[in-house]
């Protein structure tokens, strides 16, 4: 694997540029073929894989949504009986939240963050590979169970006692709980990688106030993941224990408490939505300046807004429990905090508007999605302010009003920016442009289809239609609006279909993109499209927040890294002063073995507690193989 035609310890400034690129490609490359694909630790390959897989889950979850809409298009629908419908709506929610929304945001970060901070690979590359396999395993577990009529049917937040040992029959709730374990493990791993990459692997000179806003968003998001996900780990594990080994955490007859579940779940569940939303906001902050042709207005307030959102996110969870009979005074505190979190969101919106105000807008597809986002997300944010009010919520909680609210903030607030981000970064990832013409059609269909589908749901909520009902009776006044919603959902679905078609076609036949087709300012645009395996031939050095606008023709770089082993730069947290030439692990098949062993243990433990004991042994063996020093140049 080491360079066979160069002397050991040859540094990058000792080779001329084409020889350097050849040598780096040899050291950093992934061998083609099946084994190479299984053993790669290249963040770009893993990131692409993750993005594609997450979008496949989006497609599958979307089909479930269409099934629900067909069933609800008329009263006493016969397409889905209650058991199947309850599985479908649970699968839809769990799939979208755990297998699409969080993973896709992490996936974008896995691909983009190392490039944006000017390093060669994400921190802990083998852990990155492992986290993808674990995510995939969790998704397969959920969908195979559904195919076997064992899909969870208790709602995506699985309240006890419905999901408990007495009323949650079979293994459905256990499958839900263990799927959580897979996806949370995967998300935690990526969060740790991102924190270490952003804090310690930034290009020399990239001080805190020069970090791209998308990277800041991912840093804050990763901390939220680290602090929130343990709550759902505790919740899902204690649920499995109640169901499998007879503990009484949620059994009021033996000192347990039904609301304990809700506290634990929502302590995770509320930050979860900001885990999804903050990366989207980071994408908007990346796109707006480029298409306003000016640097972002209010960099510092935007960073502070991200951090404030992250902190406040942990103080809101009781707003999901306003009608459970908790003391009203305590609930009012959570009204105040839930409304307060609208302020940092407002700060961000005003800063983007200010950027656009004094900019010269270039109305390309990525910006169209940002416009769709602002128009739609503000509605969702305002209905959020409405449900934050305890008295308001007592009427609309658990009705279609809330269904409308969270789809407005999740689709409007996260999916629209994501689609804009795909149009924006697709040229970097594939080397080809998506279709601008189709992009306008996608944006139009999705925006119109979304609003026609979900706005009427606010009215349905006011008309008394509760959530999670598999059908409704003829004597209720909901039939016309439900039919309208169902028909409109076809428009939305068409928009998504067109999006997928555009992505697949453009990947093969799109117009070739250069390194920087949008004339953007951040470091990922300083390298080829798609980037070579080593990202940058020499590590960049930055002196501003918009390095490619400061100096469009020449990139400042640092020299002196070895070319016979994988090396990148470790720098200090605040000033990004270089500290070490750290090695980066090579391709390895051990993450896959470890993931397989972990999957076996976790699936087995759905059925027997002894799995935790015996299943740990293969995991230990795989981890020892993973970490045992190999004596390669990276070990020096």
């Amino acid at each position, binding site marked *: 694997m080491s360079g066979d035609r160069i002397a050991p310890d040859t540094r990058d400034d000792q080779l001329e540029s084409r020889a350097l690129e050849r040598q780096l490609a040899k050291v950093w490359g992934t061998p083609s073929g099946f084994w190479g694909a299984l053993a790669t630790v290249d963040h770009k390959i893993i990131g692409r894989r993750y993005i594609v897989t997450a979008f496949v889950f989006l497609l599958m979850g979307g089909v479930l949504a269409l099934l629900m809409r067909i069933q609800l298009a008329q009263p006493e629908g016969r397409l889905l009986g209650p058991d199947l419908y309850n599985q479908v709506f649970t699968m839809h929610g769990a799939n979208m939240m755990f297998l699409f929304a969080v993973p896709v945001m992490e996936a974008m970060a896995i691909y983009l963050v190392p490039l944006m901070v000017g390093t060669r690979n994400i921190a802990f590359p083998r852990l990155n590979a492992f986290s993808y396999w674990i995510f995939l395993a969790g998704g397969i577990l959920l969908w195979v169970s559904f195919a076997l009529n064992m899909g969870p049917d208790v709602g995506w937040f699985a309240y006890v006692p419905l999901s408990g040992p007495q009323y949650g029959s079979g293994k459905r709730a256990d499958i839900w709980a263990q799927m959580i374990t897979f996806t949370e493990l995967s998300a935690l791993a990526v969060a740790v990688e991102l924190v270490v990459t952003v804090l310690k692997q930034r290009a020399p000179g990239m001080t805190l106030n020069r970090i791209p806003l998308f990277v800041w968003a991912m840093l804050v998001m990763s901390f939220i993941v680290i602090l929130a996900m343990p709550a759902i780990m*505790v919740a899902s594990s204690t649920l499995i*224990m109640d169901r499998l080994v007879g503990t009484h955490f949620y059994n009021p007859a033996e*000192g347990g408490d039904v609301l304990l579940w809700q506290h634990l779940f929502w302590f995770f569940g509320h930050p979860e939505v900001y885990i999804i939303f903050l990366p989207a906001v980071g994408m908007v902050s990346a796109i707006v300046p480029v298409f306003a042709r000016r640097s972002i207005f209010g960099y510092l307030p935007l960073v502070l807004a991200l951090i404030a959102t992250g902190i406040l996110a942990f103080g809101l969870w009781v707003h999901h429990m306003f009608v459970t009979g908790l003391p009203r005074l305590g609930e009012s505190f959570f009204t105040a905090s839930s409304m307060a979190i609208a302020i940092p969101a407002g700060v961000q919106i005003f800063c983007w508007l200010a950027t656009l105000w004094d900019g010269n807008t270039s109305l390309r597809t990525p910006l169209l999605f940002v416009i769709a986002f602002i128009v739609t997300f503000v509605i969702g944010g305002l209905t959020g302010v409405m449900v934050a009010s305890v008295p308001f919520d007592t009427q609309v909680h658990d009705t279609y009003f809330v269904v409308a609210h969270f789809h407005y903030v999740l689709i409007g607030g996260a999916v629209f920016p994501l689609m804009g981000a795909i149009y924006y970064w697709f040229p970097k990832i594939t080397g080809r442009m998506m279709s601008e013409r189709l992009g306008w059609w996608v944006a139009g269909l999705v925006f119109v289809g979304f609003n026609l589908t979900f706005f009427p749901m606010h009215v349905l909520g006011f008309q008394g239609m509760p959530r999670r009902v598999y059908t409704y009776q003829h004597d209720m006044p909901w039939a016309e609006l439900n039919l309208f919603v169902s028909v409109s959902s076809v428009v939305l679905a068409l928009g998504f279909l067109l999006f997928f078609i555009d992505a697949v076609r453009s990947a093969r036949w799109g117009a070739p993109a250069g390194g920087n087709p949008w004339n953007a300012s951040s470091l990922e645009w300083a390298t080829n499209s798609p980037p070579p395996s080593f990202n940058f031939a020499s590590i960049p050095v930055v002196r501003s927040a918009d390095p490619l606008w400061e100096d469009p023709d*020449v990139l400042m770089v640092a020299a002196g890294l070895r070319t016979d082993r994988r090396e990148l730069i470790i720098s200090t947290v605040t000033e990004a002063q270089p500290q070490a030439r750290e090695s980066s692990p090579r391709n390895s098949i051990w993450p896959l073995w470890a993931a397989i062993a972990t999957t076996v243990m976790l699936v087995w433990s759905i059925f027997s507690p002894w799995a935790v004991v015996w299943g740990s042994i293969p995991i230990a063996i795989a981890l020892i193989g993973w970490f045992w*020093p190999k004596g390669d140049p990276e070990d*020096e």
Partner: protein
Amino acid sequence: MMKVRMVADLSRLPAHGMQSASPTWWGTLAFMLIEGTGFALTIGVYLYLWSLAPTWPIAAPAPDLGPGTVLTLILLASVIPNYFVSKWAGAEDLRKVQIGIVVMAIIGILPLIVRAFEFSALNIWWDSNAYGSVLWLMLGLHTTHLITDLVDTLVLTAIMFTRHARNSRRFGDVQDNALYWNFVVITWLPLYVCIYWIPRL
């Protein structure tokens, strides 16, 4: 690619950093944050259930103080050799580190033996009631950490006697392992208070 201009020469930087210049040190910290949050939440569950219960413990005597207190003393004492192993690893003194890590491996086994007695000293089973469930949860969570840290230490001990040992990376690994052992000791202390002293209030 863009044209480049060299503005910094980094060739003299070390090939591996220690402590805050080491990615695995930061990874260890992140892992401590995750697990620490988990421990804090289980303590939260304990306190929550305590606040709801008319009597505490529920239908059981308070856990016997013996094994738990012995274990606490062992853990607290272990911080001293742990400190020295970390210091010697920082100085990259292989002989001393080899001795120290064998000592830490043995010290890692002792608490597990005492812990086995501690479970029955709880005077309640996990499936008796919620009080028993949360007690076993806390003790079980901590025991898992003791076991995984022991396995880590044993593997590292083996490595320190191979040709791979003379490497600043290995010394960094020893330091990360020592850091994590401190975490395992510190997280035990609030658990000890909850399990043994809150029922006696």
